[in-house]
């Protein structure tokens, strides 16, 4: 839950820095300061942002950090028997799409997975559907189809073992895996 909140605020920060159409200027500043408030106090840049409300350079640095953080999210979760991307994953997927667009040599494998409920083959198809949904999202936001490979493992490679809703939720996922060239 902590991480979700963090990504949300970081997402806002990114939104503020990159996408001017996101909201009015006043909202942006509010969002930025809120983001730093929820971030750990020990961070050195807490200080910077306070003074840098209008300092373009530090704002950009802050945004780059936020994007790096977003790129660290490489696992995206899905609901049971669903292959639509949840809204909480979209900011991070935008960041991946942006990175792929800026780095045409980068290649990723999108690994689709399902939880253990239901049949093996249907889950294989479901895992593929999920990976395809991520592929479409990345392509719509700047990634090229040649950078994206889709593979489904169905229910064969769970992230966690166990038959609780909690573990199922962690297994219904797409993993974005960057390939080393």
């Amino acid at each position, binding site marked *: 839950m902590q991480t979700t909140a963090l990504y949300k605020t970081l997402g806002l920060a990114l939104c503020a820095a990159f996408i001017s159409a996101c909201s009015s200027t006043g909202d942006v500043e509010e969002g930025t300061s809120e983001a730093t408030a929820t971030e750990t106090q020990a961070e050195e840049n807490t200080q910077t942002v306070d003074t840098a409300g209008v300092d373009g350079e530090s704002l950009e640095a802050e945004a780059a950090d936020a994007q790096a953080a977003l790129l660290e999210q490489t696992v995206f979760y899905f609901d049971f028997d669903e292959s639509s991307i949840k809204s909480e994953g979209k900011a991070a997927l935008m960041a991946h799409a942006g990175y792929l667009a800026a780095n045409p040599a980068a290649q990723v494998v999108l690994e689709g997975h399902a939880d*253990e409920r239901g049949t093996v*083959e*249907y889950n*294989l*198809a479901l895992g*593929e559907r999920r990976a395809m949904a991520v592929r479409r999202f990345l392509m719509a936001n700047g990634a090229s189809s040649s950078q994206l490979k*889709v593979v489904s493992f169905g229910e*064969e490679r769970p992230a966690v073992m*166990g*038959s609780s809703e909690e573990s199922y939720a962690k297994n219904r996922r797409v993993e974005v895996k960057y390939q080393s060239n």
Partner: protein
Amino acid sequence: MVKRSLILLFLLMTSAVHAELVIEVTQGKQSAIPVAVVPFSWQGSQPLPEDISGIITNDLASSGYFRTLPESNMISQPNNLSEVVYGDWANLRQDFVVIGSVELLPTGYAIQFHVLDVHQKMEILRHRVRGKASQLRDLAHYISDFIFEKITGVPGVFSTKLIYVTTNRERTRFNLNYADADGAREQLIYTSRDPVISPAWSPDGKKVAYVSFENGHSEIYFQELATGKRERVVAFEGSNSAPAFSPDGTKLAFVHSKLGNPDIYVMDLASRKIERMTNHYAIDTEPQWGVNGDSIYFTSSRAGGPQVYKLDTGNKAVTRVTYEGAYNARARLTADGRKLVYVHRSGDRFHIASQDLKSGLVHILTSETELDESPSVAPNGSMVIYAASEADRSILAAVSVDGDVKFRLPSKYGDVREPAWSPIFK
């Protein structure tokens, strides 16, 4: 008989591995037939390598169709017809008695057995079988098949085989195994660090098809059981899975998806020509042939959640077959084509259901097990073996198509999944 034994004899890996599955009957028929299998006589100086009458007793008892009499309850233990006192068995409320003897031959063993009807006070079956020492277990199952068919009218499946996948907890090792239908004599036929799923038998029982991820994505392989020879058969870009041989063995139905749209395809195995059978944006998967080979049952999400549909392979017309509940998938047909067995979700539980294709009546067969999946029907249509979850582990369990008989095949190690019941070997 000889042919069946040859198949076994030529199996690639003959190293004796301890059976990992142990059969446990959890529910038998109310109307189970009482039968006494008297220990077979043996004059040899050494004990027999296999307990023939013990195996037969286990076979009959584990089928759920019979209630076997414990040896300690027997008043007498005849080995010849002349020694049988029908009144003794009638007093023990037995319907049938099996007696027999094992004899050493220069080339192996001969087993003579008799099935006696206690009420009619007569012999109803007499037979003599021969085999090598290594085939004693097969001979015992063969005799069980004879007895089962004589008394129930349904062919026995004690001589059939299972293939199934075992994995370790970490899912870093996937084994494809071959074993007797009672779980005995397990042999490893393929092992990989990558997933192995969807094993399927060829109708002649000589090879299996399965999906392997050894090249980073799902591809379909054939493997001959006698030689271990593997062949990569379907390996298009994308996903290739769910192999199913047509009843005559000339075609293979499978699922292929290049960019997230799985559809059903059929390959003619002689020419390797491929025909696309479905073309729908929904998930189409898990093909299974109708008994005449002119239709294919499959799972599709075209109505939202997964449901079972039937495809006419001639005109490619599709009709929906399942309606009860929001999740019905992975259909398997009984050998007579009358019943469809599939995974059914009711509430948040997954169970095995059977549907009478004529009346449409749905019967949920399982209740004690959780997360039931991968049903496979015995070739005589009597039992369904399936994978289920028990205490966070995957085990095999079986239920009769009428729901009366239930047994489990727990494993001593890891998870057991994806069972496929062999055809009857001719």
